[in-house]
């Protein structure tokens, strides 16, 4: 289970960073979503993660630390609100420029 979690975190980070660097703005936001999910998984795995065992359940050897789970929960809620806002802004921007290529979204600079 540890190996699986580590692989999942690594893959999510990798794909996320690859998408983050794309020219298409929608793809780059999706990359950010992937990275923040990788980060949530990372937070979860920091608290002596025991696979599927829940906090304060089962035998004492299987107890996971609940603090990182609370942190991940908070981070998920905040990033959900944040991504809704980012996508709303992206909608307005793409209505103005009629493109999602970040090379063409540059009138602010002039």
């Amino acid at each position, binding site marked *: 289970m540890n190996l699986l979690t580590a692989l999942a975190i690594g893959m999510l980070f990798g794909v996320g960073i690859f998408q983050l660097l794309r020219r298409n703005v929608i793809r*780059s*936001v999706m990359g*950010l979503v992937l*990275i*923040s999910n990788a*980060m949530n998984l*990372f*937070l979860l795995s*920091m*608290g002596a993660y025991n696979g599927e065992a829940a906090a304060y359940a089962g035998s004492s050897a299987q107890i996971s630390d609940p*603090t*990182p789970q609370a*942190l991940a929960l*908070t*981070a998920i809620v*905040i*990033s959900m*609100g*944040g*991504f809704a*806002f*980012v996508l709303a*802004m*992206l909608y*307005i*921007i793409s209505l103005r420029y009629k493109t999602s290529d970040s090379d063409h*979204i540059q*009138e*602010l*600079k002039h």
Partner: protein
Amino acid sequence: MSIHWLVILPILLPLSGAVFGLLLRKFARLQFSLSLAAMLVALASSAGLLIYTFNESPVVVQIGRWPAPAGITLVGDLLSAFMVVMSQTVLTTGLLYAVACRDKCVHYPAFYPLFLILATGLTGSFLTGDLFNLFVFAELMVISGSLLTASADDRYGVEAAYKYFYISLLASVFLLLACGALYASYGTLNIADLARRIQTSPNLPLTQISMVLLLAFFMVKSAVVPFHFWQPDFHAASPTAVSAMLSSVIVKLGIYGFLRMTSLLFLEQAGLIRAALIVLGCVGVLLGGFSAIGANHLKRMLAYSTIGQIGFILVGIGWGTPLSLTAALVFAFNHSLIKSAMLMLAGAMASRAAVKSAAFNILEGIGKASPLAGGLFLIGGIALAGIPPTNGFISKLVLFKSGLEVQAFAALALIGAASALSLVYVLRAFMQIWWKMPASGVKTKPDGDRLIAPALLLGGCVALGLWSEPLIGLSMQIVNWMAEPGRYIQAVFGG
């Protein structure tokens, strides 16, 4: 009344002011009065906090009475009280500017509540004693700041807000990764507890990684050089009342973070951080200065100048002697007053132009109609360039003196030459707006934004330039306090 309220009120009052302000959205005048009252009482209580911590001891509040490492702690020590007083002073004048300005966006029902949430986020980030709580408050600040910018009159407001929000989400990822790495290594997120445990075992495998991640987070917040690219776009497009806050006090969150990191959290690696800060500060001073000279937009020029001025503060932190840290604190305080006043003046000029914009070719000659603004701009300009009798001179004097003390002549020569750049760009802007004749057929609007808020701030600048001993004395006291991290840890656990 318990003394603990002095720490809680500066956070609680703007927050509740925002909530009640939303309920009062149909009554614009009442909403503004409530917001201003909340800000003023919060400022009074943070000033009370500063006086109490200066004379007595730091004030520590364990929220919900959970003892220190388990619960969330609010710590009002000398450094955070100083930062809170600085930012709430500027935020209050920001409200005064907003009510007297001609932007359409200040009439939106959520403008003042969002402004107060911005204040809450900033104040909370300074006062919190918990790393994860810092993430929550910083996120509050980012969301309200980018919402305010997205609602700007400028047609590129949304684009600028998008850039800022995107890079800030990335910065939050850095901070959360640092939180996770530190929690895995030390099993706590309380800053005092972390400092204690990092002191006993400073070289765990994840310590350096989390240090770099935290550094990256604070660099994005302060727009330090490799992470500065979003800042001019963002600060130029947001509403003037907001951009004056963003470019002056919001960027000080990173400065606060660097001070905490080098004086409390990572004592073992502080030398490494300081060396990096000197290099980045020198690069920032040069880059900010030259970009400001090349800018063709007044607000964008001032935003580039912020990159340069933050560079000076970083060099001060990097030298790391008591005198240079004092210089960094004095510089941070003075820069907040100067830069917010300058941006307000830029917005006031833009509001008088026929097309509302702060581009130099539109502003050409606009100043002929308002000599008062010209006088204020000149005072702010010489303060930015560091010429007496203004506070900008005092901050540069202390900084250069501390540089001579550590004999860092190369860095000194570099930032000395770069500070001449600030004189160039300020005078260029002044000549463009107040000396040139307006092009024929260009109409200047008879009245624009009121000048009361920048006049107040610049009055403070001149007063602090003529009578600077209290500020310098206070900063020295703060540096003495920071030199003994054990007392911070003891205050959190003993109180």
